[in-house]
């Protein structure tokens, strides 16, 4: 392998290690276990969303609705527990079903109705932003909130539900980090090791050829949006468990940060295409950057700048070196 090939393959990872070394020297306490766990925990939610969007990128699509799906799951879980006073399990199941249903509808719009992916999922995003606010007339959901009938809501976030976002295994490892890691491994395995993942990549590269090779293109595309919807709702569930209430929020930042992670993934290991490992590294990269900068007491506005600048430099480095145009994005 030439130096150039090495740079393409490992440049991004080296850059990340360099960052870790720098922060380790500059900020005492950065290179500690708690700090590492913070980083993972802080990127758990965007990381899970990013893995979902990766699946839609793989089939040549895109999902702009993930942020809204996540905040819808946040509101739904709170509504189920606080207003309907149902159990944690019911909340989780309903959220997952909601995510799957949104994915199905997205897939249906794109595959059957031929609506372009960006458009369909943008429309879905707006719909969800509205829908999630209608039951509470735009209000956040918390125990004791006034209900339209004049009474107060008496349900609570069950401890089991809160544990999803707060429990630490062996008092160290937060459950949300475990979810991130497990989901990352599952998505990676699915995309890289199974024939389904292989066919999804084929569809993303040349859907016509995949169809003529006997692939059920429509079913796989819908599946990708369902995966994306379900993972976004998992993200929303974790968010709800962390916040302990149903906060009205647009989810725009979740969307942008997850998309950033998934796109940074293109540059990891010189893949030049969407891939689960890269996405996970991309999310981690953003987390390390933000944790390091915050520990160095950098004001919040410099964080966006550094995030962007490092992103651009890393990308130039990778793509200028590979010198190849990628198929999409």
């Amino acid at each position: 392998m030439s130096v150039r090939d090495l740079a393409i393959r490992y440049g991004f990872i080296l850059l990340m290690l360099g960052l870790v070394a720098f922060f380790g020297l500059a900020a005492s306490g950065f290179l500690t276990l708690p700090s590492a766990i913070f980083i993972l925990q802080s990127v758990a939610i965007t990381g899970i969303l990013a893995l979902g969007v990766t699946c839609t990128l793989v089939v040549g699509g895109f999902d702009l609705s993930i942020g809204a799906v996540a905040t819808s799951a946040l509101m739904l879980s709170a509504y189920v527990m606080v207003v309907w006073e149902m159990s944690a399990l019911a909340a989780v199941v309903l959220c997952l079903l909601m995510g799957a249903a949104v994915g199905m509808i997205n897939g249906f719009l794109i595959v059957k109705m031929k609506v372009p992916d960006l458009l369909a999922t943008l429309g879905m995003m707006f719909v969800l932003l509205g829908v999630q606010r209608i039951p509470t007339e735009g209000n956040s959901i918390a125990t004791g909130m006034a209900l339209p009938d004049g009474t107060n809501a008496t349900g609570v976030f069950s401890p089991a539900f809160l544990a999803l976002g707060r429990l630490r295994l062996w008092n160290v490892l937060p459950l949300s980090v475990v979810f991130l890691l497990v989901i990352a491994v599952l998505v990676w395995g699915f995309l890289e090791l199974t024939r389904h993942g292989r066919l999804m990549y084929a569809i993303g590269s040349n859907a016509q050829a995949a169809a003529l090779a006997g692939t059920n293109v429509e079913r796989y595309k819908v599946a990708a949006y369902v995966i994306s919807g379900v993972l976004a709702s998992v993200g929303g569930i974790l968010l709800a468990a962390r916040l302990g209430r149903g906060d009205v929020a647009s989810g725009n930042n979740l969307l942008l940060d997850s998309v950033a992670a998934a796109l940074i993934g293109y540059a990891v290991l010189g893949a030049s295409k969407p891939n689960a490992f890269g996405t996970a590294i991309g999310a981690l990269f953003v987390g390390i950057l933000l944790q390091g900068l915050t520990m160095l007491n950098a004001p919040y506005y410099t964080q966006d700048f550094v995030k962007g600048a490092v992103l651009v430099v890393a990308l130039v480095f990778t793509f200028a070196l590979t010198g190849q145009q990628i198929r999409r994005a």
Partner: protein
Amino acid sequence: QDRPAPFDNPGEVEIALVRYLSTGDFFQAYLSGVERQAEALGINLRVLDSRQDAALQADMVDQAIALGVDGIVIQHGLTESMKDAAQRALDAGIPVVAFDVNVENEKIPQIEQSDRDLARLALEQAIADNGEAWTAGYVYVPGIAPLDRRNETWEEFKAKYPGIDEVAMFGTLDNPIANSVANQARSVLSANPNITVMFAPYDEFAKGVKIAVDEAGMSGQVSIYSADISTADIAAMREPGSAWKATAATNPAVVGEVSVRALAMLMADEDPGAQVIVPPTLITQAQLNDESITNMEELAAKLPAFAHADVAAPDWMPLPSAPAQN
């Protein structure tokens, strides 16, 4: 009951609430107060929500003028974009009051919660609990008028008590605010494990800091002081071992009621005064626990200042039937 015109024929009266900020407990409760007072007066309410788009907010004032409303409450916004719009409303003969935005117009009463008092009360409690020397983290996003005013008080306190060592200042309004602030606070705490006081003078900030303190297992060591209160905040303050020690607050619903009452007085050709101030109260964790208060309703029952404020309340003014709550 004799009411001055135009409230003698209330069905015909319509007012507009033109909002800049709308998400979060505070704004939710504020809106409920506005609605309740409007209902008590028997007038129609139109809510125009610009969701942090200042240009759109100015347009919405014009829209309200075009719709022929009889009065306008401006809730938050930027001085520069609202100044002219508010003047246009006055020019059209429509009375205006403004909450938490200075539109630099002496004909427009300012409704305020006295942000300096809010910050002062919370910080005095911090001094009382922790002495005059501590290591502090501070949550602040500049450019938001009430936060800027609270910041002035914080600067004064730091000058007065040199023992206060601010080792970190952070903050973000990224949605959901509590989640984003929690991520920042986690990093701050790991970089500065010696922090003992967090000053987070906005309840969404305080919620985020509390999440981080809990996650870092530092709730025994760190104390949080904040502004604002809601039912959810009360629950968070009362969790066993909660680091959230005290908050200084008005009842936002009361502030909403007061805003409408001040406007109603103007519409009836009475003068509510150039500044209508709703005084804040300090609420401590101990107090909530001692009196087992679980929501805003109970808080209002225990603290009369929370039920309603005796400001802008002339005799003829109908008050909402039940005490304000959220």
